[in-house]
C-alpha cells in the first residue's frame, strides 16, 4: 500500500469519526463528491459527552459516516485477505489425515461463523426495531438477511466440496450440516417476508418478530437435530473440534476470519446505504406524484 493511499484512508477514518460525533457535515449523499470538503483535522475534542449510537441513528449521518469508513474497511479486509490466503496456501501445513483439502477450512469455517454471527446481529437489530424503535435497526436487519444467506450458502457449498473427497459424498445428514441448512431456510424465509410486504415499516416489525422467534427456536432446533441424528446411525464424520487444531492452522484461520468479518461489515454498510437510498427514492416518488397533475 502506498503512503498516499494510506493517508487518504486514514483521513477518511478521522473524518468518519468526526461525522459520527456530529462535528463534521457529510457530503451530500446523492452527489458523491470527488473532493470531500476540507476538514479541520485538529481540534476534534469531544465537546459532547461521547460518540453515541444515537448520533449514528440519523440515516443521513450514517450515509456520511459509512462513506468515509468504507474504503478503510475494504482496504483492511483485502489486506487481511491477501495475508490470510498466502498463509492458507503456503505456510499452513497439510493435515496428516486430510491432506491439502484442509485448506478449504480457511474459507469454510469463517463463512460458518459469519452465517451464525449474522443471525445474531439480525436478532439484536430486531430487538432494536421492536424495543427501541431505532431508525437504522430495520435497515440493518433487512440488509443483513441476504448477506447471511450468501455466507450460509457458501458454508454449505464449501463444506460439500470438502466432504466429497473426504467422505466420498457431497452431502451427509450430519447434525451440523443439517442445522446449517435449516439456517439457510430461515434466512430465505425472512428475505421472502421482506419482499412480500410493501409497507417497509410494518414489514420491519413482522420480520423482527419472526427473527426473534427464530432465535428462541434455534437452540430447540439444534437440540432436536442432534437427537434425531444420534437416534439414527451417527455419521462417522471427521471433526475439527476446538483445541485439537494446531497453532500453524489456527493463525491463518483467524486472519481469514478477520478478513471475512470485515468484508461482511463492508458489504453490510453498502447494502444499508442502498436501503436508505431506496427509502428516499420511495419518499420522493410519493412527493413527485403529489407534485404532478
Amino acid at each position, binding site marked *: 500500500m502506498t503512503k498516499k493511499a494510506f493517508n487518504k484512508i486514514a483521513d477518511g477514518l478521522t473524518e468518519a469519526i468526526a461525522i459520527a460525533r456530529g462535528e463534521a457535515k457529510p457530503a451530500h449523499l*446523492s452527489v*458523491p463528491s470527488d473532493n470531500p470538503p476540507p476538514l479541520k483535522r485538529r481540534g476534534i475534542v469531544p465537546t459532547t459527552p461521547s460518540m453515541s449510537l444515537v448520533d449514528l441513528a440519523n440515516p443521513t449521518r450514517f450515509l456520511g459516516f459509512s462513506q468515509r469508513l468504507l474504503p478503510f474497511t475494504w482496504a483492511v479486509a483485502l489486506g487481511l485477505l491477501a495475508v490470510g490466503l498466502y498463509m492458507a496456501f503456503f505456510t499452513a501445513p*497439510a493435515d496428516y489425515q486430510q*491432506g*491439502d*483439502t484442509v*485448506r*478449504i477450512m480457511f*474459507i*469454510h469455517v469463517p*463463512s460458518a461463523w459469519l452465517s451464525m454471527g449474522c443471525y445474531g446481529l439480525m436478532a439484536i437489530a430486531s430487538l432494536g426495531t421492536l424495543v427501541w424503535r431505532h431508525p437504522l435497526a430495520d435497515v440493518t436487519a433487512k440488509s443483513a438477511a*441476504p*448477506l447471511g444467506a*450468501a455466507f450460509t*450458502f*457458501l458454508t454449505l*457449498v*464449501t463444506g460439500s*466440496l*470438502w466432504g*466429497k*473427497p473426504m467422505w466420498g459424498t457431497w452431502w451427509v445428514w450430519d447434525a451440523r450440516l443439517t442445522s446449517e441448512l435449516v439456517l439457510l431456510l430461515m434466512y430465505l424465509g425472512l428475505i421472502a417476508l421482506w419482499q412480500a410486504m410493501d409497507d417497509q415499516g410494518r414489514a420491519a416489525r413482522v420480520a423482527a418478530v419472526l427473527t426473534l422467534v427464530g432465535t428462541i427456536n434455534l437452540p430447540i432446533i439444534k437440540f432436536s437435530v442432534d437427537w434425531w441424528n444420534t437416534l439414527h446411525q451417527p455419521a462417522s464424520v471427521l471433526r475439527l473440534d476446538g483445541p485439537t487444531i494446531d497453532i500453524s492452522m489456527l493463525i491463518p484461520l483467524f486472519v481469514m476470519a478477520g478478513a471475512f468479518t470485515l*468484508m461482511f461489515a463492508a*458489504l453490510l454498510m*453498502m*447494502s444499508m*446505504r*442502498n436501503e436508505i*437510498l*431506496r427509502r*428516499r*427514492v420511495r*419518499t*420522493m*416518488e410519493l*412527493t*413527485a406524484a*403529489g*407534485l404532478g397533475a
Partner: protein
Amino acid sequence: MSHAGFIFAAYAMAVVVLAGVVGWIIADGRALRRRLADLEVRGVRRRSDRREEQAT
C-alpha cells in the same frame, strides 16, 4: 497437491458468491442513485419548497 480440483473449486465458489454479492449491491446502488438523480432533475425535493416547484 492432493485433491487440488476440490480446493480450487471451493475457493472459486467463494469468489463467485462474494463477487456476485458485491456486483449485485453495486448495481443496485447505481440504479438507486440514477433514480434519485432523475427525480431531482424533475424538481422533486425531499422537504419544503414544493409550491415553488409547482409554479415553474
